[in-house]
């Protein structure tokens, strides 16, 4: 089983080499890496224990918030903090606007930390120009962290929730 440190070493080596594609298999764990336009991409594939594969340290500038999908599959971008939250999906805002946790100020929030959500569960509202966008989870799982506060202005693509998917 490769350690994160080792994967990082491999990434560095491959990054500096002319190798375009690299795969490694051991004890049922597979690591595959592919270069796209000079970037190194790691694709952890099914395995017994979860390996939190690290993305290469952003030598290339981090891409703008994913445009194409609401739920990004984002492995932790940094070293995990101790007691870290275990999540694998983020729900992001599809537009600039004000984040509202509940349908109206006197009602309860759509979701709170620890809630289970389904794909079609409404998790919040983002309002811009009196257009109220009910954001659906689009993933089934547990809300492990809420990243914004009621009434906060959110940006396009900004992560709103972290979800541990089922």
């Amino acid at each position, binding site marked *: 089983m490769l350690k994160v440190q080792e994967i990082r070493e491999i990434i560095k080596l491959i990054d500096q080499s002319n190798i375009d594609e690299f795969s490694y298999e051991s004890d049922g764990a597979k690591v595959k890496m592919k270069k796209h336009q000079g970037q190194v991409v790691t694709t952890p594939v099914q395995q017994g224990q979860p390996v939190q594969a690290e993305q290469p340290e952003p030598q290339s500038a981090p891409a703008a918030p994913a*445009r*194409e*999908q*609401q739920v990004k599959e984002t492995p932790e971008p940094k070293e995990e903090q101790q007691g870290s939250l275990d999540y694998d999906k983020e729900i*992001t805002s*599809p*537009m*600039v*606007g*004000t984040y*509202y946790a509940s*349908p*109206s*100020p006197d*009602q309860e929030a759509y979701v709170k930390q620890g809630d289970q959500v389904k794909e079609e569960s409404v998790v919040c509202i983002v*309002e*811009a*120009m*009196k*257009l*109220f*966008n*009910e954001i*659906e989870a*689009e993933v089934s799982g547990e809300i492990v962290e809420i990243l914004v506060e009621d*009434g*906060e*202005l959110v940006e*396009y693509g900004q992560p709103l929730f972290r979800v541990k998917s089922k």
Partner: protein
Amino acid sequence: MESTRKQLIDLLENEQGHISGQQLSEALNISRTAVWKHMNELKKDGYEIEAVRRKGYKIVSYPDKISGNTLQWGLDTAWIGQQLYHYDQVESTQDIVHQMAKQGKPHGTVVIADEQVKGKGRMAREWHSPQGKGIWMSILLRPPLPPVQAPQITLLTATVLAEMVAAESTLDPQIKWPNDILVNHKKVSGILTEMQAEQDRIQYIVLGIGMNVNQDAVDLPPAIAHKASSLKEESGMEWNIQRTIQSILRTFETTYDQFIDKGFEQVKAKWEHYGYRIGERVTISTMRDTWEATLIGIESDGALRAKRDYGKVEKLYSAEIHWGEGGYDA
């Protein structure tokens, strides 16, 4: 079927005097008996029709009570209101259209109510929607746009309402960003839009329009009397609600089609033409900050452009604006 009825109304409307049953049956290519049956149907829907021997028929008065039928007959649109539902009383037309959207009803479906008992305002603030005095309707839209463009539709709707008011009266309507319609600094109409969307695709939009039309001052809740009004109060005349709805829907369809076809430029120009306090100073509050600025227009994405005193232009998507005297706070 629906078109025969509509053609019949058109014929009656376009004739100055009476039009004979014979003429009608020839023009519509139906029997005299069928003409007579249609006449009875029209009467049921509130048309008052005068029948004079040897001369024929004439519409003396139009129904003031609206119904799905009477609304649709005079509509003449390609897609909006092709499915149109009218109710005497509902909790909220928005909720009904949400349901319909989920059941797969088409783009352009319209729900209208004489009265809403739980009309929705911003953040579920109640919108007072009493019986037969105003327009309370929701339109289902399925625009081929990414969600970031959706707010443009609410601004577009505001221009449609302002244009209608300007065309049908001598009033001078204004649009308070993003989409309240003001007449003499008082709100006569509001728009509330709800959207279901994925990151890159709008599933549907429920566009809600509330318009105070024939309320008298006493019909408006005292708490909002200083900042809300009705078209009748401001214009001094009674409005035909049915024709007003039809006019809104027709103009909406044309404007929407142009927007989908050619983009936001034209809408933006119209919006700025009607824009309230554009060129004037206001106070703006966001979560962190309160500042003064001069409003200078809107962005191509509908955001409000406000210039700070030191020259920086801010784009506002969501903010509380203190409109100062006359206009009330958003």
